[in-house]
C-alpha cells in the first residue's frame, strides 16, 4: 500500500440526534435500535455514530414494511374512518366519577360508589 496515497474519504457519520431527525423517530428510539443491533453504528465513548449508508438501508427496511412502520401504514387517517364517532356520549355516568382524576382514582371511585 502506497503510504503517500490519500486516505479514502471517511463515510459520513451521523450523531444520534441527526439520525433521529432523518428517520422521524425519537433519539431514545434510535439508541434502542442501536443497542438491539437493528441499526448499525459505532460507539465512541458514550456517543453513537451512524454511517449515512447504514441509515439509508434501515430507512428502506422500515419503508418496505420490515419494521414497525408496517402497522401505521395500515391505519387509515382519522378523517377517513372516524374510529370513535359512533361511541361519543353513548354512556351516562351521572357525573359520579371523573376520568380526569386519573384511571386509578376512577377505578377506586367507581368501585366505592357501586
Amino acid at each position, binding site marked *: 500500500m502506497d503510504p503517500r496515497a490519500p486516505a479514502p474519504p471517511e463515510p459520513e457519520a451521523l450523531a444520534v440526534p441527526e439520525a433521529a*431527525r*432523518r*428517520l*422521524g*423517530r*425519537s*433519539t*431514545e*428510539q434510535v439508541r*434502542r435500535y442501536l443497542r438491539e443491533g437493528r441499526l448499525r453504528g459505532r460507539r465512541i465513548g458514550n456517543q453513537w455514530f451512524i454511517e449515512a449508508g447504514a441509515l439509508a438501508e434501515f*430507512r428502506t427496511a422500515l419503508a418496505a414494511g420490515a419494521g*414497525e412502520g408496517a*402497522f*401505521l401504514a*395500515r*391505519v*387509515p*387517517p*382519522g*378523517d*377517513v*374512518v*372516524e*374510529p*370513535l*364517532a*359512533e*361511541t*361519543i*356520549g*353513548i*354512556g*351516562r*355516568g*351521572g*357525573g359520579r*366519577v*371523573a*376520568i*380526569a382524576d*386519573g*384511571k*386509578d382514582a*376512577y*377505578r377506586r371511585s*367507581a*368501585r366505592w360508589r357501586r
Partner: protein
Amino acid sequence: MTAATAVAEPGASDASGRAEVAVARPEAGPRGDDPAAPTAAFVDASAIVALVDADDPAHAAAVAAYRDLVGDGYKLFTTDHGLAEAYDLLRLGLGPAVAGDWLRRQRLAVYHVDEADLAEAQRRLLSVGEDKAAGPSLSLTDALSLAVMDRLGVAAAFAVDPGFLTAAG
C-alpha cells in the same frame, strides 16, 4: 416521547381550573422527510372514557380534542392492552351494557404488543421512581403504551389521565 409538547386543547379546563384533557403532540411528528404524510396519535383509555361518558366533566373537552385530531387526519390507534383497559374502565364506571356497546361500535386500529414491547415496558417500570410501599408508579398497561409509542415513533397521545400525560410528556 421526549419530543412531545403537552398542548392544552380547547376547553382544556373546567370552571375549577382543573386540567381536563390534553393532547401531547410532537414538535416534529413521525413523518420522516415527508411533511405531507399523516401523523399518528395513541389513544389512551382515559380519553375513551371521557368521550363515551356524556356526564364526565372532561367530556366536552375530549370531544373537541377528538374532532381536532380527526380533522387533522391523525391516524388514531391503541394497543390490545389499551383496548382491554378501556373496556374494563367503561364496565366499571358505566356498566357492562355500555362497555359492550362501545366494544361493538368502536373502530380503533389495535396494535398487538409482543415480547419486545413487554421487555421494554418492564425496563421502564423498573427504571422509573418506585415507591417502596406502593411499587412502580406507572401501571404496566401505561408502560406498554409508552413502549409501543416509542417503538412506532409516535409522539402524540390523546389522554385525559394526568399520570399518563406526565409520563408521556
